[in-house]
């Protein structure tokens, strides 16, 4: 679970940013310059898929997203300025026509990305429990970011189009669509590996999901190959490039293997589709393909993130179960220590009194009395030694080593542990003799299970009634019964956890716990366990 906790924090960066203020700002400038340089390179790469003003696949957006995710959304304004300067210096934009709108248009997406990342990260935990688990906020931000940037671009796109004098709604919509598709593809392709790489470089293994097993890899590979064969078959049949099967196989891959598998599946789709789309002239066909590719990327990545979040959340649930278990075990130990203390202090009191008596008596005049005292002391010492032997036998066994447990003896032990709880409630416990039989199991766990049942029975039983513990053997299994009168008022809760823990322990021992009614109004909980060591042949 530590891994999950580590993961929740943003990965530490491979740069040491804890230097002096001057050093820190120098570093910051260096990082921003590097960002600007790589951004420029990626931007020119995207010109290959340019459609009008924007590009259908814009890897620079992925760099931007990864940068803001790693360094924090508060760097968004600085990054936006860096992007603006890049455009000015490379002459891609001279700000001659309507400078304000142009600046807004260039800096806008970066600022919106920053805002989305900030919102998702700061509010992620509170809204939905599943968002508490690491990969989902990233996936959501990666998908929402481009859409939000596109929506935010509308206010400046309209006046700008009006200014250039040729306002056409369809072309405006098209360019915004291209813009968001390009960003989405760019973010989903480029940002995950960059963030992963930064995590690896900082020495942290951010891998909440266990590596997939070979059979899962084989299954996913088979499905992927099959879906591509189907696409190819459809293509050769002259029906065009239809990517539906890929959508399904990528989603499946994500669910089965997490983000890594999803990403490779997306990469494969992009590697096969993007080069093919360079030569397509029909804008409609191109848009359709890229939109489907963006859908494949989003859904695949979301599925992968969901699978990992789900794995994390079940790990969290398992951890809570263990804690519950531990808390219940502490209760058992406490009850045991009460019983042991009771068992020790009674004979010890007698021994102390009698020994004092011996020390002050006249050996000749009160010989008979002294003999009685000495005899009593010896008997009490015997009781204590027996208790010590019992406790030692209990403690010496390996905690994880199952050992044979005699059921009759075991039930009597439970009785003595539960006694201090029963007495103040004026409930008496009776342990009935039964056949001699043993079960194989972990002593303390079974003790915990049966004690929980007896304790529930005591809690439910009205004052003055009895709780009966008995056992019988039928066909290689032993049934341990705990019977009690039903409560006069319904219990005030607290019955549940003990029973849940008891049930899980008994199930782990190959047994069951069942509730039945005997006669008119007695409640019986029966623990059914397999027996061991039949020596009666």
């Amino acid at each position, binding site marked *: 679970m530590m891994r999950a906790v580590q993961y929740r924090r943003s990965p530490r960066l491979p740069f040491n940013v804890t230097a002096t203020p001057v050093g820190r700002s120098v570093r910051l400038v260096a990082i921003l310059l590097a960002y600007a340089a790589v951004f420029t390179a990626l931007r020119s790469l995207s010109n290959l898929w340019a459609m009008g003003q924007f590009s259908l696949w814009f890897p620079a957006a992925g760099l931007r997203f990864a940068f803001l995710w790693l360094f924090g959304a508060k760097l968004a304004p600085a990054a936006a300025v860096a992007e603006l300067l890049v455009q000015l210096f490379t002459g891609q934009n001279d700000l001659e026509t309507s400078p304000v709108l142009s600046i807004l248009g260039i800096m806008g997406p970066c600022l919106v990305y920053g805002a989305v990342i900030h919102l998702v990260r700061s509010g992620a935990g509170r809204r939905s429990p599943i968002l508490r688990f690491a990969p989902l906020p990233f996936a959501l931000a990666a998908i929402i970011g481009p859409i939000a940037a596109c929506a935010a671009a509308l206010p400046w796109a309209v006046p700008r189009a009006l200014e250039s004098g040729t306002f056409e709604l369809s072309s405006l919509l098209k360019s915004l669509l291209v813009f968001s598709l390009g960003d989405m593809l760019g973010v989903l392709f480029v940002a995950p590996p960059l963030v992963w790489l930064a995590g690896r470089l900082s020495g942290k293994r951010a891998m909440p999901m266990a590596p997939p097993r070979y059979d899962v890899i084989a299954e996913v590979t088979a499905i992927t190959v099959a879906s591509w064969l189907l696409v190819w078959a459809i293509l050769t049949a002259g029906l065009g490039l239809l990517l539906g099967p890929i959508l399904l196989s990528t989603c499946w891959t994500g669910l089965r293997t997490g983000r890594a598998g999803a990403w490779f599946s997306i990469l494969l789709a992009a590697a096969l589709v993007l080069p093919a789309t360079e030569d397509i002239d029909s804008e409609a066909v191109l848009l359709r393909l890229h939109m489907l590719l963006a859908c494949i990327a989003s859904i695949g990545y979301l599925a992968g993130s969901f699978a990992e979040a789900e794995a994390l959340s079940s790990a969290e649930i398992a951890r809570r179960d263990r804690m519950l278990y531990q808390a219940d075990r502490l209760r058992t130990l406490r009850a045991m220590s*009460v019983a042991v*203390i*009771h068992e020790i*202090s*009674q*004979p*010890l*009191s*007698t021994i*102390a*009194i*009698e020994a*004092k*008596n011996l020390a002050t008596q006249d050996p000749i005049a009160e010989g008979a009395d002294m003999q009685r005292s000495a005899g*009593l002391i010896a*008997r*009490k010492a015997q009781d204590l030694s027996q208790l010590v032997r019992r406790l030692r036998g209990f403690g010496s066994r390996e905690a994880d080593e199952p050992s044979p447990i005699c059921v009759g003896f075991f039930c009597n032990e439970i009785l003595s542990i539960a006694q*201090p709880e029963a*007495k*103040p409630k*004026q409930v*008496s416990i009776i342990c009935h003799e039964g056949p001699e039989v043993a079960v194989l199991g972990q002593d303390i766990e079974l003790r915990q299970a049966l004690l929980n049942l007896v304790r529930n029975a005591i809690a439910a039983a009205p004052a*003055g009634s009895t709780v009966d513990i008995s056992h019988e053997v039928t066909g290689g299994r032993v049934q341990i019964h705990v019977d009690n009168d039903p409560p006069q008022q319904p219990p005030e809760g607290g019955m549940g956890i003990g029973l849940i823990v008891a049930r899980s322990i008994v199930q782990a021992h190959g047994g069951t716990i069942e509730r039945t009614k005997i006669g008119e109004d007695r409640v019986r909980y029966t623990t059914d366990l397999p027996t061991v060591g039949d020596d009666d042949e």
Partner: protein
Amino acid sequence: MSNQGEQAVVYVVDDDADLGASLSRMLKRKGYAAEPFVNPQQLIAAYSEAPAACIVTDVMMGEMDGFAFADEVRRIDPAAAIIFMTAWPTTANAVDSIRRFGGLDYLEKPIDDQRLLAAIEEGVAWSRKRRCQIERTAKLTPREREVFGLLVKGLSSKAIAAELKLSPKTVEDHRAQISAKTGTSGLAQLIALATE
């Protein structure tokens, strides 16, 4: 205790028969008329025959716990001192045993015998005084007891007369009767008797 004439009766109640017997033997040696009981019901059944000065009881027992037992004893004899002992002391029980159940002490097992003896001695003394007070006020008529109750609260005869709607003269008569029956002279002694 032998120097005070008759031996004080002390009962020990514990469901561990050996411990009860040991304790009462020790107490016998210290000059008490001690008797062990394994369950409280037995003691209650036999109690009216031979009331005790002090009862030492376990808290955790079978059908009747030490506290319920103490309530029962209080009902039939308000002049018996009660001392609790337990193998599993808790703060809540300790407070309850003194405040709610009128216990004199709350002892942990294994028993510290010096403390037990000190508590019993204190209990026996308290019980004597209490019995004496009950005896002396027992002879009062109900009306006299009413007047006695108001007197020890510090009310004047006039105020008592107004409170009970009697004439001051009648109240004075009651006062004289109270003094004669309890063998006290003056308000100070009366108050001392009431608060003993």
